[in-house]
């Protein structure tokens, strides 16, 4: 069929910009004029500590994330109350927030000169958690707790109440019902979210690089250092292979033990009494975790110092000659670059995700293969690009950056679109054909509208990932391709926190505006029938 040929487009994209670079990593990591196991040996001996620390901090981060996220999952899964949908909506914010903003928010709130320290100073309390393991864990938990809240919460929401009713009628009290029925039935979703958070924390780069300081480094940071500072390509590749290997183990656990559960009818309780107080307290904590860092960043961008007067100093400084020399290009150009990459990433990934989804609908067993790029961290991918494309003319060009962003975004965009194809009604297309529509018209009018919600979500993901992407861009960019996150990182290096904050505010505003725009375009698409 003609559609099968269309699949060659995403296939060749993935082969050229994912499979081939990963293959070149294998070559560099295992081969030096012949098979050479020395690099792998060194990876496990010399970098054994780094590897185990990376796994250790990822497990601790995931546990902490579970502790923060599970109460939210309980509230979402059991109660109906006003503002529930608002909490759910707000909880997506950290998920699409660029990691560099998380870092900045963390500095602004918990930093030695941060808001909390200033607020608590009169009480004699001083928070010193920067450049420590706790800083990394807290930042990861903040970044990821919505994953737990939403995944486990939605599994809980769909856990049929009749199981607990049946257990009650068979003599099980509330505690036994939880231990014997609820917990085992939620286990797959808890495992799913745990492994997902583990993967994010395991591959996290910006947070560890900046908040971990010199004392705490992970595989990601070491690959970055080996690739750019020490220039040891074989070692960087060997470590990258370790990264991919460990990720694959966790992805295997995710696909084998995790499941989002069947949907059943759950009777929601009205919130009242002690539960409502606890829920309110928790909602407040969520709101604080999500908004306090962002608002702190905004605060520092508008004052000269803590308690200082309102000023636009940092913003005007941003557009001065000095700033341009720090960043390498003008901030306006950096904004332009970020938008350019983000739009291209959407244009690359969305059509390919649609083609792949329609193809995967008939070849379901290949879905995990299409999701494989999630096993490769952004730093590893970028390093693989350097190894794979060094001699080619696209090396050093903006094309590689777009390709890296697209490969990183592809699994999520594909997943979003694929979810809506599996719920789409095949018969609508048949009905359109029987009414005289050509295959293309049937696709346009009967099939595409059903995929629209998934496409919108996918486009939002693509945009969010590209505009916030840090690790891969840091390895691949040249000064003229500096993006906003890179610019923020560079300004941060000069300790001009106010300007970094101002740049972050610009990034947040741009991202928010773009999400609203994507949403509007999607809504318009749905409204216009012809």
């Amino acid at each position, binding site marked *: 069929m003609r559609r099968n040929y269309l699949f060659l487009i995403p296939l060749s994209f993935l082969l050229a910009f994912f499979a081939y670079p990963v293959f070149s990593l294998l070559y560099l990591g295992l081969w030096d004029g012949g098979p050479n196991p020395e690099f792998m040996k060194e990876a496990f001996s010399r970098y054994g500590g780094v590897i185990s620390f990376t796994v250790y901090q990822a497990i601790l981060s995931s546990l902490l994330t579970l502790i923060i996220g599970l109460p939210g999952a309980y509230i979402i899964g059991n109660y109906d109350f006003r503002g529930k949908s608002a909490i759910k909506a707000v909880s997506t914010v950290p998920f699409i927030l660029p990691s560099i903003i998380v870092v900045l928010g963390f500095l602004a709130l918990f930093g030695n000169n941060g808001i909390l320290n200033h607020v608590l100073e009169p009480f004699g309390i001083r928070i010193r958690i920067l450049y420590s393991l706790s800083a990394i864990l807290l930042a990861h938990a903040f970044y990821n707790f919505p994953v737990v809240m939403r995944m486990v919460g939605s599994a809980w929401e769909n856990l*049929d109440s*009749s*199981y607990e*009713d*049946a*257990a*009650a*009628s*068979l*003599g*099980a*009290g509330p505690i*036994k019902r939880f231990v*014997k*029925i609820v917990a*085992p*039935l939620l286990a797959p979703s808890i495992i799913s979210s745990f492994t997902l958070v583990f993967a994010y924390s395991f591959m996290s780069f910006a947070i560890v690089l900046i908040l971990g300081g010199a004392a705490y480094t992970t595989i990601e940071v070491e690959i970055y250092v080996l690739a750019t500072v020490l220039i040891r390509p074989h070692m960087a590749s060997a470590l990258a292979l370790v990264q991919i290997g460990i990720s694959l183990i966790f992805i295997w656990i995710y696909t084998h033990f995790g499941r989002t559960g*069947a949907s*059943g009818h759950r009777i929601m309780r009205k919130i009242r009494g002690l539960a409502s107080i606890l829920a309110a307290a928790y909602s407040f904590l969520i709101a604080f975790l999500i908004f306090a860092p962002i608002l702190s960043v905004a605060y520092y961008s508008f004052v000269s110092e803590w308690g200082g007067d309102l000023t636009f100093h940092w913003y005007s400084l941003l557009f001065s000659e000095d700033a341009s020399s720090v960043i390498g290009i003008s901030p306006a150009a950096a904004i332009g670059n970020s938008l350019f990459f983000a739009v291209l990433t959407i244009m690359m990934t969305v059509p390919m995700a649609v083609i792949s989804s329609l193809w995967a609908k008939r070849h379901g067993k290949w879905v995990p293969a299409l999701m494989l790029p999630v096993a490769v961290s952004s730093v590893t991918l970028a390093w693989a690009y350097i190894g794979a494309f060094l001699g080619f003319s696209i090396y050093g060009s903006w094309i590689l950056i777009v390709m890296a962003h697209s490969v990183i975004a592809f699994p999520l965009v594909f997943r979003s679109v694929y979810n809506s194809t599996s719920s789409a009604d095949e018969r609508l297309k048949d009905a359109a054909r029987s009414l005289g529509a050509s295959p293309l018209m049937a696709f346009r009018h009967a099939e595409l509208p059903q995929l629209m919600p998934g496409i919108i979500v996918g486009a939002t993901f693509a945009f969010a990932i590209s505009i916030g992407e840090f690790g891969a861009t840091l390895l691949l960019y040249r000064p003229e391709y500096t993006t906003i996150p890179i610019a923020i990182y560079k300004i941060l290096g000069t300790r001009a926190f106010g300007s970094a904050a101002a740049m972050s505010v610009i990034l947040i505003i741009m991202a928010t505006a773009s999400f609203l725009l994507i949403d509007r375009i999607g809504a318009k698409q749905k409204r216009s029938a012809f």
Partner: protein
Amino acid sequence: MEIKLEKIRKRFDDSEALRSVSLRAPDGKMTALLGPSGCGKTTLLRIISGLLRPDSGNIFFDGKDVTEVPPEKRNVGMVFQNYALFPHMTVAQNIGFGMLMRKRQKKEIEMRVKEVMELVGLKGYEKRKPSELSGGEQQRVALARAIAPEPDILLLDEPLSALDAKLRISLRSEIKRIQKELGITAIYVTHDREEAMAVSDRIAVMNRGRIEQIGNPMEVYRDPKNDFVASFLGDANLIPSVGVGGLAKSPFGDVPASFDGNGCIFFRPGNCRISDKGTESVIISSEPVGDVLRITVGLGNEKIVLLEKMSLFESAAIKPGKKVRIYVDRKYMRFIRCTGRATKTF
């Protein structure tokens, strides 16, 4: 164990689910709660089980007030509409769950599980997971799980509604057999009148949060209290009439009336036939239903449906517009109250 409900009321947000329901379910008998969806029958069952608490009213098990007793302490067995088999447990674990919760010995549980599985005809299915069973098998597991801990009361919430028609008929007689064998007091919720008549010793017909009538199956079928009960239990001819001085007039002769004022004359389609001594009417339409012909005739402004066993030759003579005489057996005619809530069957 006898169940007694006294003035049970239950409100949900915007609707009154139960409006002062009182009911007595005799010991060792199967009582059906029959009614259309939304009539409150499942709510009533959940209140008996303890899964739901009434806003007011009391529940007595053998005279003991259990209104405040939580479900896990009531010793009732319940079969759910979607079975609610624990998906993470095997068939044997599902059936043994109730006894495990009652802290019985392991040996005892194993023996009882075996015994119950034999009773419901599931021998050899111990190690299966619910997802590996057919609908009928799942239903048997659900029943076995409910009766395994030897509950005082068995509650069945539309236990057969998820199965196809043939399986429903064979399983309902099996449920009846098992209930008789155990001699357990049972409540059976259903919206299927045929099922209710087949399984139960008593039927409580419910509508809009009230019990309209309670009686044995033939009683409610033959002597419905009003047009709703009459039409819910089967096809019913209902002709408006007025009771005056103990009599109500009908085209087929006078009927004794237990009350004065507006009401309707009721009889089943099976109780009228074409006959020379009958009342003149006009055939409107006819359709074959298996062996019988279902004929609709017009009589003044009223439509009447009758069922007639006929040969092919005779049925060829039944044509719209043709005049026929209709006779109704006086013995089966009743003058009943008219609520205007009859379910239209034709």
